[in-house]
């Protein structure tokens, strides 16, 4: 292979010697060809390797982790009073669901997070649109938001308790605050990153300012807005967990606080599992939304 200039073909019977081990060549290659000894075969990816399908490979890691956990509890490496086994957690989930306690708690928590997302979403997106679309809006809004976003919102809990008491309001407010910033940042960036060439082309087509916003800028910003939505929904659950530590008398947080009193690690873990699944479910909804709204996008989807 070091001297590709030599194109002279060795006779067929000599080729095996020149080629080296015949194992390297796929069986599909026709044997009667001469003059190819110095060439490297391009192997079709379908024949390259018989691999385990991706949907089988993906869950192996998490399942191994679960197994490790179960084994650790069985062998006593982790005491049952410190860490309940996966089996116990599943059983606890069953009990909590059966007596309706979990369902009620989820409903309460979902209401909190839903209200927070709604309020924070409206605030974040409308501020971003004002700042993104209008120069005056940018001057008035952007500097303040950029300043406030550096404040860790969880740090505002004491202040919120003083302002809003310990009822539902501080919890919803905390979620709203957590949601608003990522949505603002992504929406604003989305509006500002709309392809200037498209805006120019749209202007030559005679679109009015309103038409330009509706047909060019908003759809152009949409991919970024949806990134913001996914990010902020993640933050929403985080904010909820923090918020529900504030004197919760209902909801998943209250279940967890009670469990802590009685050292019920199985209930705590069951609640964490519930949080995780709620987060996953919401993420799946956003993915579905993306698939529907962004089907026009020529984006790279991984190979």
């Amino acid at each position: 292979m070091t001297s590709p200039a030599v194109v002279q073909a060795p006779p067929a019977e000599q080729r095996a010697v020149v080629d080296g081990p015949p194992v390297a060549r796929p069986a599909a290659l026709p044997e009667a060809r001469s003059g190819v000894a110095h060439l490297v075969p391009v192997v079709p990816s379908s024949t390259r390797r018989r691999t385990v399908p991706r949907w089988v490979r993906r869950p192996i890691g998490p399942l191994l982790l679960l197994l490790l956990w179960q084994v650790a509890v069985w062998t006593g490496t982790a005491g049952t009073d410190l860490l309940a086994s996966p089996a116990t957690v599943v059983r606890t989930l069953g009990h909590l669901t059966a007596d309706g306690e979990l369902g009620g708690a989820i409903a309460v928590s979902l209401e909190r997070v839903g209200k927070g997302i709604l309020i924070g979403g409206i605030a974040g997106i409308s501020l971003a649109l004002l700042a993104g679309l209008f120069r005056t809006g940018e001057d008035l809004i952007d500097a303040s938001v950029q300043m406030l976003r550096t404040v860790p919102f969880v740090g505002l809990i004491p202040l919120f308790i003083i302002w809003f008491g310990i009822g539902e309001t501080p919890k919803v407010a905390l979620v709203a605050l957590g949601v608003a910033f990522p949505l603002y940042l992504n929406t604003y960036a989305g509006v500002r990153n709309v392809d200037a060439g498209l805006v120019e082309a749209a202007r030559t087509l005679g679109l009015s300012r309103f038409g330009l916003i509706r047909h060019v800028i908003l759809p152009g910003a949409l991919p970024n807005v949806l990134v913001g939505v996914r990010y902020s929904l993640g933050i929403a659950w985080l904010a909820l967990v923090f918020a529900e530590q504030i004197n919760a008398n209902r909801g998943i947080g209250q279940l967890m606080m009670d469990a802590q009193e009685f050292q019920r690690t199985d209930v705590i873990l069951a609640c964490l599992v519930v949080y995780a699944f709620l987060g996953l479910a919401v993420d799946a909804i956003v993915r579905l939304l993306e698939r529907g709204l962004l089907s026009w996008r020529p984006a790279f989807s991984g190979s």
Partner: protein
Amino acid sequence: MASSLQRIVTPVLDPEPGIDPAAEAGLEPASGYRPPADPRLAVSVRGLTRAFASNTVIDRLDLDVPAGQFVVLLGASGCGKSTLLRILADLDTEIGGDVRVPARRAVAFQSPRLLPWKRVWRNVVLGLPGRPDRARAAAALAEVGLEARAEAWPKTLSGGEAQRTSLARALVREPELLLLDEPFGALDALTRLKAQDLVWRLWRRHRPAVLLVTHDVEEALLLADRALVMKDGVIAHSVDVDLSRPRDVGDPTFLALRADLLGRLGVDAPRSVA
């Protein structure tokens, strides 16, 4: 079809807004200027100046384009030809001088600039008054041979198809002035020939005035009624291309014109291949 040219308002340098009544009354000429035989003009430019910082790209440029004429604007890279086109498209208004263009004008850019989130037919009728008219889009797409792709997303179009969609989008507006900014620049050689032919046929049918910016002399001579060479911020040379259509690149007159234009563009050695 009233030929009323719209004055491009220059908020920076020209404090006087609105449409000059002189524009309606046959464009009373500046001193020393003789109007061409057809009194209707599609472009009338007097003393146009455009500077970027201290760099004057267009310096007291005059230009008239009669209605329906196919004009090709040639020039070396950076000579200001695209700037002139952008000014005529009303995309660049930081200008001095007097520029008049028809209210109905359309632009096709070098890249198609289709909105990726709108299907092909919606891209074509975008910006037209009223509800999106599917039939009208279909008619325009049929003219460029793309009626079958009306429902496609722009991402699924080939380069040539996207550029043809962009042409359909320009023509559906029935422009009096069609501005083409190197619309074949990004196409491969074969697609380019087809696209040139298409532009020529569309022009023959609709007869808008066309200003095509290019740096390809052969393309200019295949298509133009008149070829302009831009240099040092003005139209340095204008030549009428009196060749019968369709044109033959091997014709001696064609070759002579081509050599002359290449010389004016600073390419002295006659090239055997374009």
